[in-house]
């Protein structure tokens, strides 16, 4: 079980770097959808056996994170007629480097935390922290509203991976509610993006600067 989970987690980390390095919004959305598929596969392999609960969560994850949310984001992108992230606050190469440093630090930090015997040597905790960090980086350093939403999704994915260590703690119903909240959040953000692009003729959030001290 360990080996399969770790292999999936390595792919997840690679997708993180892909998200940090690309400027095309289409690629960002695809990367985010790919993370959804990886998470679903993780759900199935972490549970070890195929149970109704794990299948249900995996299906919901794929449906929401890889189909519903990406299509909402694609629509928002098409409506705003914007395809590229230009001039991020921190350039693409520096943010890749930062992502590398963050991933390294996550590995070190996770080592200092006392892990339960079944998670010693597993990549679950460090990759959770690294993915959440990637999300932060995207949120803080990119200007386009859609990229920020993808960053938020990556942050949520990191939290989701942490949740995988606790399969018994989260009843299916709560897990589903968390996913539902996420979808509604993206939906509301999508509506606001639409209003931003209509009002400012752009989805560049640096234009949102009239409210300040």
């Amino acid at each position, binding site marked *: 079980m360990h080996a399969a989970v770790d292999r999936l987690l390595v792919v997840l980390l690679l997708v993180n770097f892909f998200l940090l390095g690309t400027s095309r919004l289409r690629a960002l959305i695809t990367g985010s959808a790919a993370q959804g598929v990886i998470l679903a596969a993780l759900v199935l392999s972490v549970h070890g056996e195929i149970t109704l609960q794990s299948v249900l969560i995996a299906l919901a994850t794929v449906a929401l994170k890889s189909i519903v949310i990406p299509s909402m984001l694609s629509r928002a992108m098409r409506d705003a007629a914007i395809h590229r992230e230009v001039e991020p606050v921190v350039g693409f190469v520096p943010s890749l480097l930062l992502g590398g440093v963050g991933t390294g630090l996550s590995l070190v930090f996770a080592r*200092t*935390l*006392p*892990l*339960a015997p079944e998670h010693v040597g597993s990549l679950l905790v460090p990759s*959770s922290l690294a993915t*959440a960090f990637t999300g*932060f980086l995207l*949120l803080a350093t990119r200007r386009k*509203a859609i990229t*920020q939403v993808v960053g*938020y999704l990556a*942050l*949520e994915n*990191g*939290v989701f991976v*942490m*949740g995988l*260590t*606790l399969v*018994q*703690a*989260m*009843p299916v119903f*709560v897990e589903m*509610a*968390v996913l539902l*909240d996420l979808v*509604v*959040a993206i939906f*509301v*953000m999508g509506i*606001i993006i639409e*209003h*931003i692009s209509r*009002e*400012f003729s752009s989805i560049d*959030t640096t234009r*949102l*600067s*009239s*409210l300040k*001290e």
Partner: protein
Amino acid sequence: MALALVLVPLAFAACAAAMPWQRWRPWLLPVCGAAHLALTFVALGRPDVAAIGAWLKLDDLGRLVLAVVSVLFFACSLYAPGYLALRTERSNRVFVPCLLVFLAMTSLIVESQHLGLMWVAIEATTLASAPLLHFNHNARSIEATWKYLLIGSVGIALALLGTFFLAYAALRAGLGSSLFFGDLVREAPRLSRPWLHAAFVLLFVGYGTKMGLAPMHTWKPDAYGEAPGIVGTLLAGALTSCAFLALLRFFQIVAAGGEAAFARQLMIGIGLFSMAVAGVFMARQRDYKRMLAYSSVEHMGILVLGVGIGGLGVFGALLHLVNNAVTKGVLFLSAGNIHRAYGSKSIEDVRGALRRLPFSGALFLAGFFAVTGSPPFAPFLSEFTILRAAMTSGHALVGALFLVMLAIVFIGMGGAVLAVVQGEPPEREPDGFRDRVGTVAPIVILMAIVLLLGVYLPAPVSRLVHNAAAFVDLKR
């Protein structure tokens, strides 16, 4: 019973969404508000309110916050029809159901005993309030809503990570992982320390963002500045109280785990910092609604400071939760009326509110004196209690700083408030906004509560606060 508190507002929300009559829809709010208030009174009278196994239960802390939320919502719901009648140019088809969903979700937060469910409910309030902030549909409100959504969502994601860390602490201790509050408090002494610390820091940042503690408060001035008065009231009075309740739940777990000193230090530090930030930004504030947002940051600081001091401070903080919520209602609603009448939020354009709007102006002024802790109003009592707790428990320096900050805030806020209410009002438009019963009476009710709680604490209220304080600060 426990379920009805959540389901009744949801049912009303569904009705409101389905209802085709723009003119009558706002009247669902007072009906639902009254029903919720009645249910709350019945629930407070019963010793044991629970539903769905151990998932929903009204404990002593929950009772206090539920009462606050219900009373505040009722006052806002009385104000809403009068307000929305003035805003007929905007559809209220989203606004009214969102308000009702907001009420349902705050009730759910208060009652949930499962920390995962509580998280879901808190996130749901964020989502329900986004359309409320966006009610005015202009560039500024879009900006405020975007910041609110993004910062709020990130905060809440960190809180979820913290919740998972906490569950992992239990798993690591070989307890099997459970997110039921009661289980975690009982098993707290055996939880893994490093995970417990990390969890509390994440949860403090996460739910602290929702509360609007500095330095996670940056969404607050924008959101409160652009929100209609009624939404500002509910965010500053109800939602922040619920986020504080969430924080207290985790504080209890950490304290039960024997790490109270660590949590208290963090709370005192952030509490004083929030007050300082609020004081600095209030002094230079030209926008009286944003000023109220900083006042909210200040009072959130006072709440965590009180709990950080401990002992009598916890009682003071919980009493202050009640007083702050009701006083914020007075301030936001009267500021909303002033904003309506002048069409500006800048203290450069607004003067002579006492003349043009005798009631709203006077209530705004009285609300200012109340919120800055002047006797005989209720916040004086709770702030004094916290001060006394600080002085008697060996936190003299904290107490002194607390006093200095209160003085700074009083001076900073006083300048702006006096500029708004005094002077000669500019020329009035012939059919401009004026005080009406519908938009003044609810504020008068709230102000009466502030005054009453200040001069005489009725026994049931006192019992409610005492029980909640005993529940939070259990000596183990």
